[in-house]
Protein backbone atom coordinates (compact mmCIF):
# COMPACT_ATOMS: atom_id res chain seq x y z
CA UNK A 1 0.00 0.00 0.00
CA UNK A 2 2.87 2.36 0.69
CA UNK A 3 4.03 2.50 -2.89
CA UNK A 4 5.64 5.68 -4.13
CA UNK A 5 5.40 7.22 -0.71
CA UNK A 6 7.14 10.57 -0.52
CA UNK A 7 8.41 10.45 3.02
CA UNK A 8 9.93 13.94 2.93
CA UNK A 9 6.48 15.44 2.54
CA UNK A 10 4.99 13.45 5.40
CA UNK A 11 4.81 15.34 8.65
CA UNK A 12 3.33 14.98 12.07
CA UNK A 13 0.00 16.71 12.36
CA UNK A 14 -0.07 19.55 14.84
CA UNK A 15 3.39 20.40 16.06
CA UNK A 16 4.64 23.46 14.21
CA UNK A 17 7.05 26.18 15.10
CA UNK A 18 4.93 27.38 17.99
CA UNK A 19 5.28 31.03 18.83
CA UNK A 20 6.92 31.77 15.49
CA UNK A 21 3.91 30.40 13.59
CA UNK A 22 1.60 32.45 15.76
CA UNK A 23 3.53 35.67 15.18
CA UNK A 24 3.84 35.18 11.42
CA UNK A 25 0.22 34.24 10.76
CA UNK A 26 -0.72 37.89 10.76
CA UNK A 27 -4.02 37.57 8.98
CA UNK A 28 -5.46 35.11 11.48
CA UNK A 29 -3.96 37.14 14.31
CA UNK A 30 -5.70 40.25 13.04
CA UNK A 31 -9.04 38.45 12.84
CA UNK A 32 -8.64 37.08 16.36
CA UNK A 33 -7.81 40.53 17.72
CA UNK A 34 -10.80 41.96 15.90
CA UNK A 35 -13.01 39.20 17.33
CA UNK A 36 -11.79 39.81 20.85
CA UNK A 37 -12.44 43.55 20.59
CA UNK A 38 -15.90 42.98 19.15
CA UNK A 39 -16.78 40.46 21.83
CA UNK A 40 -15.44 42.64 24.62
CA UNK A 41 -17.75 45.51 23.75
CA UNK A 42 -20.81 43.52 22.68
CA UNK A 43 -24.01 45.18 23.69
CA UNK A 44 -22.08 48.09 25.12
CA UNK A 45 -23.30 51.60 24.32
CA UNK A 46 -20.04 53.35 25.04
CA UNK A 47 -17.87 50.67 23.42
CA UNK A 48 -14.24 51.66 23.13
CA UNK A 49 -14.96 54.78 25.20
CA UNK A 50 -14.70 52.52 28.23
CA UNK A 51 -11.00 52.21 27.60
CA UNK A 52 -10.80 55.97 28.25
CA UNK A 53 -13.21 56.01 31.19
CA UNK A 54 -11.47 53.33 33.25
CA UNK A 55 -7.98 54.84 33.29
CA UNK A 56 -9.49 58.30 33.75
CA UNK A 57 -11.30 57.24 36.92
CA UNK A 58 -8.29 55.32 38.15
CA UNK A 59 -6.16 58.38 37.54
CA UNK A 60 -8.57 60.68 39.38
CA UNK A 61 -8.71 58.39 42.41
CA UNK A 62 -4.95 58.04 42.67
CA UNK A 63 -4.43 61.73 41.99
CA UNK A 64 -6.57 62.78 44.92
CA UNK A 65 -5.52 60.00 47.28
CA UNK A 66 -1.80 60.12 46.67
CA UNK A 67 -1.25 63.53 45.06
CA UNK A 68 -3.51 65.70 47.14
CA UNK A 69 -4.06 63.87 50.42
CA UNK A 70 -0.60 62.33 50.74
CA UNK A 71 0.83 65.51 49.23
CA UNK A 72 2.95 63.92 46.52
CA UNK A 73 1.93 66.97 44.48
CA UNK A 74 4.41 69.07 46.43
CA UNK A 75 7.26 66.58 46.27
CA UNK A 76 6.98 65.84 42.54
CA UNK A 77 6.44 68.60 39.95
CA UNK A 78 3.78 67.79 37.33
CA UNK A 79 2.74 64.90 39.54
CA UNK A 80 -0.40 64.24 37.47
CA UNK A 81 1.73 63.49 34.43
CA UNK A 82 4.23 61.48 36.46
CA UNK A 83 1.40 59.39 37.87
CA UNK A 84 -0.38 58.86 34.57
CA UNK A 85 2.71 57.78 32.65
CA UNK A 86 3.22 55.05 35.24
CA UNK A 87 -0.45 54.06 35.28
CA UNK A 88 -0.66 53.50 31.53
CA UNK A 89 2.43 51.29 31.66
CA UNK A 90 1.15 49.20 34.55
CA UNK A 91 -2.33 48.95 33.01
CA UNK A 92 -0.86 47.66 29.78
CA UNK A 93 1.11 45.03 31.68
CA UNK A 94 -1.81 43.92 33.82
CA UNK A 95 -4.22 43.64 30.93
CA UNK A 96 -1.79 41.85 28.63
CA UNK A 97 -0.64 39.43 31.32
CA UNK A 98 -4.11 38.75 32.75
CA UNK A 99 -5.82 38.19 29.42
CA UNK A 100 -2.97 36.10 28.02
CA UNK A 101 -3.21 33.84 31.05
CA UNK A 102 -6.92 33.27 30.48
CA UNK A 103 -6.57 33.03 26.71
CA UNK A 104 -6.15 29.28 26.24
CA UNK A 105 -8.91 28.29 28.65
CA UNK A 106 -11.09 31.02 27.17
CA UNK A 107 -10.78 29.46 23.73
CA UNK A 108 -11.59 25.92 24.86
CA UNK A 109 -13.89 25.05 21.91
CA UNK A 110 -11.19 25.90 19.40
CA UNK A 111 -8.40 24.19 21.32
CA UNK A 112 -10.42 20.98 21.53
CA UNK A 113 -11.70 20.83 18.00
CA UNK A 114 -9.29 22.38 15.53
CA UNK A 115 -5.53 22.40 15.47
CA UNK A 116 -3.88 25.77 15.20
CA UNK A 117 -0.80 27.10 16.96
CA UNK A 118 -2.27 27.78 20.40
CA UNK A 119 0.28 30.52 21.03
CA UNK A 120 -2.05 32.60 18.86
CA UNK A 121 -4.39 33.09 21.80
CA UNK A 122 -1.94 34.65 24.28
CA UNK A 123 -0.34 36.64 21.46
CA UNK A 124 -3.68 38.07 20.37
CA UNK A 125 -4.45 38.98 24.01
CA UNK A 126 -1.26 41.01 24.20
CA UNK A 127 -2.22 42.67 20.90
CA UNK A 128 -5.62 43.57 22.28
CA UNK A 129 -3.96 45.12 25.33
CA UNK A 130 -1.77 47.05 22.90
CA UNK A 131 -4.86 48.35 21.11
CA UNK A 132 -6.27 49.52 24.44
CA UNK A 133 -2.98 51.17 25.24
CA UNK A 134 -3.27 53.52 22.26
CA UNK A 135 -6.08 55.80 23.52
CA UNK A 136 -4.36 56.04 26.90
CA UNK A 137 -1.14 56.98 25.16
CA UNK A 138 -2.99 59.71 23.24
CA UNK A 139 -4.32 61.18 26.49
CA UNK A 140 -0.86 60.95 28.04
CA UNK A 141 0.80 62.75 25.13
CA UNK A 142 -1.83 65.50 25.09
CA UNK A 143 -1.37 65.95 28.84
CA UNK A 144 2.41 66.08 28.37
CA UNK A 145 2.13 68.78 25.70
CA UNK A 146 -0.02 70.86 28.05
CA UNK A 147 2.92 71.07 30.48
CA UNK A 148 5.47 71.76 27.73
CA UNK A 149 6.68 68.33 26.64
CA UNK A 150 9.89 68.54 24.55
CA UNK A 151 11.36 65.02 24.33
CA UNK A 152 14.67 64.28 22.65
CA UNK A 153 15.03 61.35 20.24
CA UNK A 154 16.76 59.25 22.90
CA UNK A 155 13.88 59.83 25.28
CA UNK A 156 11.32 58.76 22.68
CA UNK A 157 13.39 55.66 22.07
CA UNK A 158 13.37 54.99 25.81
CA UNK A 159 9.56 55.09 25.75
CA UNK A 160 9.50 52.51 22.95
CA UNK A 161 12.01 50.35 24.82
CA UNK A 162 9.88 50.52 27.97
CA UNK A 163 6.83 49.42 25.99
CA UNK A 164 8.77 46.58 24.37
CA UNK A 165 10.05 45.30 27.72
CA UNK A 166 6.52 45.24 29.12
CA UNK A 167 5.05 43.56 26.02
CA UNK A 168 7.68 40.81 25.91
CA UNK A 169 7.51 40.22 29.65
CA UNK A 170 3.71 40.05 29.64
CA UNK A 171 3.71 37.63 26.71
CA UNK A 172 6.33 35.40 28.35
CA UNK A 173 4.48 35.30 31.66
CA UNK A 174 1.16 34.93 29.82
CA UNK A 175 2.41 31.89 27.90
CA UNK A 176 3.75 30.33 31.10
CA UNK A 177 0.71 30.94 33.27
CA UNK A 178 -1.72 30.40 30.39
CA UNK A 179 -0.34 26.89 29.90
CA UNK A 180 -0.32 26.14 33.62
CA UNK A 181 -3.85 27.48 33.90
CA UNK A 182 -5.06 24.66 31.66
CA UNK A 183 -3.76 22.13 34.20
CA UNK A 184 -4.70 23.92 37.43
CA UNK A 185 -7.03 26.90 37.41
CA UNK A 186 -5.16 28.39 40.35
CA UNK A 187 -2.92 30.22 37.91
CA UNK A 188 -5.66 32.80 37.30
CA UNK A 189 -5.76 33.83 40.93
CA UNK A 190 -2.02 33.89 41.19
CA UNK A 191 -1.99 36.31 38.26
CA UNK A 192 -4.24 38.79 40.05
CA UNK A 193 -1.91 38.62 43.02
CA UNK A 194 1.18 39.19 40.88
CA UNK A 195 -0.52 42.11 39.14
CA UNK A 196 -1.28 43.73 42.49
CA UNK A 197 2.23 43.23 43.81
CA UNK A 198 3.99 44.59 40.74
CA UNK A 199 1.82 47.69 40.57
CA UNK A 200 2.76 48.66 44.11
CA UNK A 201 6.41 47.63 43.97
CA UNK A 202 7.01 49.77 40.88
CA UNK A 203 7.51 53.52 41.17
CA UNK A 204 4.04 54.43 39.92
CA UNK A 205 2.52 56.16 42.92
CA UNK A 206 5.77 57.41 44.45
CA UNK A 207 9.14 58.73 43.34
CA UNK A 208 12.31 56.61 43.29
CA UNK A 209 13.78 59.04 45.86
CA UNK A 210 11.54 57.48 48.47
CA UNK A 211 12.88 54.02 47.65
CA UNK A 212 16.47 55.23 47.74
CA UNK A 213 15.84 56.88 51.12
CA UNK A 214 14.39 53.69 52.55
CA UNK A 215 16.66 51.10 50.97
CA UNK A 216 19.79 53.07 50.17
CA UNK A 217 21.43 52.56 46.79
CA UNK A 218 23.17 49.30 47.72
CA UNK A 219 21.91 45.70 47.46
CA UNK A 220 18.34 46.71 48.36
CA UNK A 221 18.31 49.08 45.39
CA UNK A 222 19.53 46.33 43.06
CA UNK A 223 16.91 43.86 44.30
CA UNK A 224 14.21 46.51 43.87
CA UNK A 225 15.28 46.94 40.25
CA UNK A 226 15.28 43.25 39.43
CA UNK A 227 11.55 43.66 38.85
CA UNK A 228 11.70 44.36 35.09
CA UNK A 229 8.72 46.69 35.33
CA UNK A 230 10.60 49.16 37.51
CA UNK A 231 13.16 50.18 34.86
CA UNK A 232 10.43 50.03 32.18
CA UNK A 233 8.35 52.54 34.13
CA UNK A 234 11.40 54.70 34.79
CA UNK A 235 11.96 54.75 31.02
CA UNK A 236 8.39 55.97 30.64
CA UNK A 237 9.01 58.69 33.21
CA UNK A 238 12.13 59.75 31.40
CA UNK A 239 10.26 59.84 28.10
CA UNK A 240 7.00 61.53 29.09
CA UNK A 241 7.59 63.33 32.35
CA UNK A 242 11.27 64.40 32.48
CA UNK A 243 11.20 66.74 29.45
CA UNK A 244 8.35 68.91 30.72
CA UNK A 245 8.28 72.38 32.34
CA UNK A 246 9.56 72.67 35.89
CA UNK A 247 10.97 69.15 36.20
CA UNK A 248 14.54 69.01 37.48
CA UNK A 249 15.16 65.44 36.34
CA UNK A 250 17.69 63.28 38.13
CA UNK A 251 18.08 59.85 36.58
CA UNK A 252 17.75 56.98 39.06
CA UNK A 253 21.26 55.54 39.64
CA UNK A 254 22.10 52.72 37.24
CA UNK A 255 18.98 53.07 35.06
CA UNK A 256 20.66 52.13 31.73
CA UNK A 257 22.11 48.95 33.23
CA UNK A 258 18.86 48.01 34.96
CA UNK A 259 16.90 48.70 31.75
CA UNK A 260 19.21 46.42 29.75
CA UNK A 261 18.88 43.80 32.46
CA UNK A 262 15.08 44.13 32.34
CA UNK A 263 15.18 43.56 28.58
CA UNK A 264 17.23 40.39 29.08
CA UNK A 265 14.93 39.21 31.88
CA UNK A 266 11.88 39.75 29.67
CA UNK A 267 13.45 37.74 26.83
CA UNK A 268 14.41 34.91 29.19
CA UNK A 269 10.86 34.94 30.52
CA UNK A 270 9.55 34.68 26.95
CA UNK A 271 11.83 31.72 26.30
CA UNK A 272 10.74 29.95 29.50
CA UNK A 273 7.10 30.69 28.70
CA UNK A 274 7.40 29.27 25.18
CA UNK A 275 9.26 26.15 26.34
CA UNK A 276 6.69 25.38 29.04
CA UNK A 277 3.83 26.19 26.67
CA UNK A 278 5.19 23.76 24.08
CA UNK A 279 5.68 21.01 26.63
CA UNK A 280 2.12 21.30 27.87
CA UNK A 281 0.56 22.07 24.47
CA UNK A 282 0.09 18.40 23.56
CA UNK A 283 -2.09 17.92 26.64
CA UNK A 284 -4.34 20.96 26.23
CA UNK A 285 -7.08 19.23 24.22
CA UNK A 286 -7.53 16.42 26.74
CA UNK A 287 -7.22 18.53 29.90
CA UNK A 288 -9.84 21.10 28.98
Amino acid sequence: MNTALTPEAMHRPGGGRGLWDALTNRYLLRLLVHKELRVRYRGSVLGMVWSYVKPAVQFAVFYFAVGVFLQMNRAVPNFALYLFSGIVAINFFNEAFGNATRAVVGNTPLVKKIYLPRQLFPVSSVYVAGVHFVPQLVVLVVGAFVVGWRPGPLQLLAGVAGFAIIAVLALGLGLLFGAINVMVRDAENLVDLIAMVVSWTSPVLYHWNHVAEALGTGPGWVIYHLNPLTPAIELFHWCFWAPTNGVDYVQPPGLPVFAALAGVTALIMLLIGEVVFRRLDGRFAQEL
Partner: protein
Amino acid sequence: MADTGTTRIIVDDVSKVFNIRHTHSLKEWIVAKIKGRREATVDRFRALDHVSFSVDHGEAVALLGLNGSGKSTLLKLISGVMNPDDGEILVQGKIAGLIEVGAGFHPDLTGRENVYLNGAILGMSEEDIAARFDEIVAFSEIEEFIDTEVKFYSSGMFLRLAFAVAVHTDPDVFLVDEILAVGDEPFQKKCLARIRELKESGKALVIVSHDLDMVASLCDRGILLKRGKMIHDGDVHEAVALLRGQ
Protein backbone atom coordinates in the same frame (compact mmCIF):
# COMPACT_ATOMS: atom_id res chain seq x y z
CA MET B 1 -7.20 8.20 -10.19
CA ALA B 2 -4.53 10.59 -11.37
CA ASP B 3 -1.94 10.31 -8.61
CA THR B 4 -2.34 6.79 -7.40
CA GLY B 5 0.20 5.50 -4.95
CA THR B 6 0.37 8.55 -2.72
CA THR B 7 -0.23 7.83 0.90
CA ARG B 8 -1.90 10.70 2.68
CA ILE B 9 -2.18 9.37 6.22
CA ILE B 10 -0.07 6.82 8.05
CA VAL B 11 -1.20 5.64 11.46
CA ASP B 12 1.58 3.49 12.83
CA ASP B 13 1.01 1.44 15.97
CA VAL B 14 -0.77 4.29 17.73
CA SER B 15 -1.94 4.14 21.32
CA LYS B 16 -3.62 6.79 23.41
CA VAL B 17 -4.18 6.66 27.14
CA PHE B 18 -6.24 9.24 28.97
CA ASN B 19 -5.46 10.18 32.51
CA ILE B 20 -8.69 11.28 34.05
CA ARG B 21 -8.01 13.70 36.86
CA HIS B 22 -10.83 14.52 39.17
CA THR B 23 -9.89 18.03 40.12
CA HIS B 24 -8.45 21.11 38.46
CA SER B 25 -7.73 22.94 41.69
CA LEU B 26 -4.38 22.67 43.42
CA LYS B 27 -5.90 22.97 46.89
CA GLU B 28 -8.50 20.28 46.30
CA TRP B 29 -5.83 18.00 44.91
CA ILE B 30 -3.54 18.46 47.91
CA VAL B 31 -6.39 18.05 50.41
CA ALA B 32 -7.61 14.93 48.61
CA LYS B 33 -4.08 13.56 48.48
CA ILE B 34 -3.60 14.02 52.23
CA LYS B 35 -6.96 12.48 53.05
CA GLY B 36 -6.35 9.72 50.52
CA ARG B 37 -9.60 10.45 48.76
CA ARG B 38 -10.48 9.31 45.29
CA GLU B 39 -10.14 12.76 43.74
CA ALA B 40 -6.38 12.58 44.08
CA THR B 41 -6.13 9.41 42.07
CA VAL B 42 -5.81 9.45 38.35
CA ASP B 43 -7.89 6.99 36.39
CA ARG B 44 -6.29 5.60 33.29
CA PHE B 45 -8.33 4.81 30.26
CA ARG B 46 -6.92 3.30 27.10
CA ALA B 47 -8.77 4.92 24.22
CA LEU B 48 -6.66 3.47 21.42
CA ASP B 49 -4.63 0.31 21.53
CA HIS B 50 -1.92 -0.23 18.90
CA VAL B 51 -3.89 0.87 15.86
CA SER B 52 -2.19 0.85 12.45
CA PHE B 53 -3.45 1.67 8.98
CA SER B 54 -2.83 4.06 6.15
CA VAL B 55 -5.07 6.04 3.84
CA ASP B 56 -4.32 6.79 0.21
CA HIS B 57 -5.01 9.71 -2.01
CA GLY B 58 -8.62 9.63 -3.21
CA GLU B 59 -9.70 7.08 -0.68
CA ALA B 60 -12.72 7.41 1.58
CA VAL B 61 -12.49 5.48 4.80
CA ALA B 62 -15.28 5.04 7.32
CA LEU B 63 -14.33 4.73 10.96
CA LEU B 64 -16.94 2.59 12.59
CA GLY B 65 -17.59 1.44 16.11
CA LEU B 66 -19.92 1.82 19.04
CA ASN B 67 -19.79 4.83 21.35
CA GLY B 68 -16.49 5.01 23.20
CA SER B 69 -14.63 2.80 20.76
CA GLY B 70 -12.05 5.51 20.06
CA LYS B 71 -13.23 6.87 16.70
CA SER B 72 -13.27 10.52 17.64
CA THR B 73 -10.00 10.21 19.51
CA LEU B 74 -8.40 8.81 16.38
CA LEU B 75 -9.70 11.73 14.30
CA LYS B 76 -8.35 14.19 16.84
CA LEU B 77 -4.96 12.52 16.69
CA ILE B 78 -4.90 12.71 12.90
CA SER B 79 -5.92 16.36 12.95
CA GLY B 80 -3.16 17.19 15.44
CA VAL B 81 -5.46 18.42 18.19
CA MET B 82 -4.03 15.67 20.40
CA ASN B 83 -0.77 13.75 20.27
CA PRO B 84 -0.45 9.97 20.46
CA ASP B 85 1.25 8.51 23.55
CA ASP B 86 2.78 5.73 21.57
CA GLY B 87 3.40 5.14 17.89
CA GLU B 88 3.39 7.74 15.19
CA ILE B 89 1.00 9.53 12.89
CA LEU B 90 2.16 11.10 9.68
CA VAL B 91 0.12 13.09 7.20
CA GLN B 92 0.80 14.72 3.90
CA GLY B 93 -0.77 17.95 2.70
CA LYS B 94 -3.27 20.25 4.32
CA ILE B 95 -5.68 18.76 6.83
CA ALA B 96 -9.13 20.06 7.60
CA GLY B 97 -10.89 18.55 10.52
CA LEU B 98 -14.62 18.81 10.69
CA ILE B 99 -14.42 17.44 14.19
CA GLU B 100 -17.35 19.60 15.03
CA VAL B 101 -19.02 22.02 12.69
CA GLY B 102 -18.77 25.61 13.77
CA ALA B 103 -16.19 25.17 16.52
CA GLY B 104 -14.53 28.41 15.47
CA PHE B 105 -17.75 30.36 15.13
CA HIS B 106 -18.51 33.19 17.50
CA PRO B 107 -22.15 34.13 18.17
CA ASP B 108 -21.42 37.85 18.47
CA LEU B 109 -19.90 38.16 15.03
CA THR B 110 -21.92 38.39 11.83
CA GLY B 111 -22.11 35.53 9.36
CA ARG B 112 -19.68 37.33 7.08
CA GLU B 113 -17.11 37.89 9.83
CA ASN B 114 -17.45 34.28 10.91
CA VAL B 115 -16.81 33.04 7.38
CA TYR B 116 -13.54 34.98 7.32
CA LEU B 117 -12.52 34.01 10.84
CA ASN B 118 -13.36 30.34 10.42
CA GLY B 119 -11.78 30.19 6.98
CA ALA B 120 -8.56 31.60 8.42
CA ILE B 121 -8.69 29.19 11.36
CA LEU B 122 -9.02 26.32 8.90
CA GLY B 123 -5.91 27.55 7.13
CA MET B 124 -7.18 29.70 4.26
CA SER B 125 -5.50 32.93 3.26
CA GLU B 126 -7.35 36.22 2.97
CA GLU B 127 -7.36 35.99 -0.84
CA ASP B 128 -8.65 32.39 -0.80
CA ILE B 129 -11.57 33.36 1.36
CA ALA B 130 -12.39 36.47 -0.61
CA ALA B 131 -12.31 34.45 -3.85
CA ARG B 132 -14.58 31.75 -2.48
CA PHE B 133 -16.83 33.92 -0.35
CA ASP B 134 -19.76 34.06 -2.78
CA GLU B 135 -19.54 30.33 -3.41
CA ILE B 136 -19.60 29.64 0.34
CA VAL B 137 -22.61 31.86 0.92
CA ALA B 138 -24.44 30.41 -2.08
CA PHE B 139 -23.79 26.89 -0.78
CA SER B 140 -25.18 27.77 2.64
CA GLU B 141 -28.29 29.42 1.10
CA ILE B 142 -28.45 32.13 3.75
CA GLU B 143 -27.57 35.13 1.58
CA GLU B 144 -30.04 37.51 3.19
CA PHE B 145 -28.75 36.88 6.72
CA ILE B 146 -25.03 36.99 6.03
CA ASP B 147 -24.63 40.35 7.77
CA THR B 148 -26.71 39.33 10.78
CA GLU B 149 -25.01 38.22 13.97
CA VAL B 150 -24.80 34.47 14.17
CA LYS B 151 -26.56 34.35 17.56
CA PHE B 152 -29.81 35.21 15.78
CA TYR B 153 -29.45 32.26 13.40
CA SER B 154 -31.50 29.11 13.76
CA SER B 155 -29.40 26.05 14.50
CA GLY B 156 -29.94 24.83 10.96
CA MET B 157 -28.72 28.08 9.42
CA PHE B 158 -25.70 28.06 11.69
CA LEU B 159 -24.71 24.53 10.73
CA ARG B 160 -25.21 25.21 7.04
CA LEU B 161 -22.89 28.16 7.06
CA ALA B 162 -20.28 26.34 9.12
CA PHE B 163 -20.41 23.32 6.86
CA ALA B 164 -20.20 25.52 3.77
CA VAL B 165 -16.99 27.12 5.05
CA ALA B 166 -15.46 23.77 5.95
CA VAL B 167 -16.09 22.12 2.58
CA HIS B 168 -14.63 25.09 0.74
CA THR B 169 -11.28 25.11 2.53
CA ASP B 170 -9.79 22.82 -0.12
CA PRO B 171 -7.79 20.49 2.10
CA ASP B 172 -5.92 17.37 1.00
CA VAL B 173 -7.09 15.37 3.97
CA PHE B 174 -10.62 15.81 5.15
CA LEU B 175 -11.72 14.50 8.54
CA VAL B 176 -15.43 14.40 9.18
CA ASP B 177 -17.03 13.57 12.50
CA GLU B 178 -20.77 12.98 12.56
CA ILE B 179 -21.73 16.14 10.82
CA LEU B 180 -23.86 14.88 8.03
CA ALA B 181 -26.90 15.23 10.22
CA VAL B 182 -26.91 18.82 9.07
CA GLY B 183 -30.01 20.64 7.99
CA ASP B 184 -33.01 19.36 6.06
CA GLU B 185 -32.99 16.59 3.49
CA PRO B 186 -32.23 18.69 0.40
CA PHE B 187 -29.28 20.25 2.18
CA GLN B 188 -28.03 16.86 3.37
CA LYS B 189 -28.11 15.63 -0.21
CA LYS B 190 -26.12 18.64 -1.27
CA CYS B 191 -23.54 17.96 1.46
CA LEU B 192 -23.18 14.34 0.41
CA ALA B 193 -22.79 15.38 -3.20
CA ARG B 194 -20.08 17.82 -2.19
CA ILE B 195 -18.24 15.16 -0.20
CA ARG B 196 -18.38 12.77 -3.16
CA GLU B 197 -16.97 15.57 -5.29
CA LEU B 198 -14.10 16.03 -2.84
CA LYS B 199 -13.43 12.32 -2.91
CA GLU B 200 -13.39 12.21 -6.70
CA SER B 201 -11.02 15.16 -6.86
CA GLY B 202 -8.53 13.00 -4.98
CA LYS B 203 -8.90 14.07 -1.36
CA ALA B 204 -8.37 11.54 1.36
CA LEU B 205 -11.49 11.30 3.51
CA VAL B 206 -11.91 9.81 6.95
CA ILE B 207 -15.51 9.78 8.07
CA VAL B 208 -17.00 8.94 11.44
CA SER B 209 -20.72 8.39 11.49
CA HIS B 210 -23.40 6.27 13.07
CA ASP B 211 -25.50 6.48 9.92
CA LEU B 212 -24.26 3.14 8.62
CA ASP B 213 -26.19 3.11 5.35
CA MET B 214 -24.90 6.53 4.47
CA VAL B 215 -21.23 5.71 5.14
CA ALA B 216 -21.58 2.41 3.32
CA SER B 217 -22.68 4.29 0.22
CA LEU B 218 -20.03 6.97 0.58
CA CYS B 219 -16.93 4.97 1.51
CA ASP B 220 -15.21 1.98 -0.04
CA ARG B 221 -13.30 0.96 2.99
CA GLY B 222 -14.34 0.53 6.59
CA ILE B 223 -12.25 0.34 9.72
CA LEU B 224 -14.00 -1.11 12.73
CA LEU B 225 -12.84 -0.22 16.22
CA LYS B 226 -13.85 -1.97 19.40
CA ARG B 227 -12.70 -0.57 22.73
CA GLY B 228 -9.71 1.04 21.11
CA LYS B 229 -8.61 -2.01 19.13
CA MET B 230 -8.89 -2.30 15.38
CA ILE B 231 -10.83 -5.47 14.58
CA HIS B 232 -11.50 -5.01 10.88
CA ASP B 233 -9.94 -3.11 8.00
CA GLY B 234 -11.40 -3.83 4.59
CA ASP B 235 -14.61 -3.67 2.66
CA VAL B 236 -17.04 -1.21 4.19
CA HIS B 237 -20.05 -3.52 3.84
CA GLU B 238 -18.25 -6.25 5.76
CA ALA B 239 -17.37 -3.73 8.47
CA VAL B 240 -20.99 -2.60 8.72
CA ALA B 241 -22.18 -6.20 8.86
CA LEU B 242 -19.65 -6.97 11.60
CA LEU B 243 -20.72 -3.94 13.62
CA ARG B 244 -24.41 -4.85 13.26
CA GLY B 245 -23.65 -8.41 14.28
CA GLN B 246 -21.88 -7.39 17.47
